[in-house]
């Protein structure tokens, strides 16, 4: 199942890229699975797992959220807008 992952702010800089295209195996379609697949390619992101916000579309999702084919998963560092 194809999923495109977008990296923001420090994650983009740490990985040196803005997006990662994944093929997730059938039955292993959670956000957590996608995170693991990203970290397999970019181990420098591993330490950030406890701080990471996940989103699909305009909504935050939990790590156990199940992705659908063609979903775009957004990986956010802790937000720090406002001031």
């Amino acid at each position, binding site marked *: 199942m194809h999923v495109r992952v977008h990296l923001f702010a420090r994650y983009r800089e740490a990985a040196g890229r803005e997006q990662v295209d994944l093929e997730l195996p059938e039955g292993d379609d959670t956000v957590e699975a996608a995170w693991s697949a990203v970290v397999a390619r970019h181990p420098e992101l591993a330490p950030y797992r406890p*701080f990471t916000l996940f*989103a699909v579309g*305009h909504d935050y999702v939990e790590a156990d959220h199940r992705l659908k084919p063609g979903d775009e998963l957004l990986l956010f*560092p802790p937000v*720090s*807008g*406002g*001031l």
Partner: protein
Amino acid sequence: MNDIFAVVGHPLSPDAIAAQVDEPGAGGVVIFSGVVRNETGGRPVKFLEYEAHAPMAEAKLREIGAAIRARWPGVRRVAMLHRIGRLEIGESSVLIAVSSAHRGEAFEACRYAIDTLKRTVPVWKKEHFEDGEVWVGLQGG
């Protein structure tokens, strides 16, 4: 409605946002401006950089506006602007304005707006120092 929720690349003006929430029935306007400080934890800051995931950021700002409408029916207009890109010390990174018939609602709604924005809107701040730069929001990160 005429409410405004936007991520923008230009300087923010209290005069302009006050005019945007101006409404003949509104008696009070409360404006919050978040200003770039010259230091963080005692370390002098040269300038800041803000990045946003703009489509979702604007969606989250609209959600805040809808929640304000539901909770404070006396609110007349809401405007929420977040600036991105490079900001100098003293410039405004965020500007929120709420007009209402009675001032209590404008104060409460404006505070709710900035508190919620800081938790939910996908914006990230990078502090630039004399000798380096740091993304804010993760100690030691």
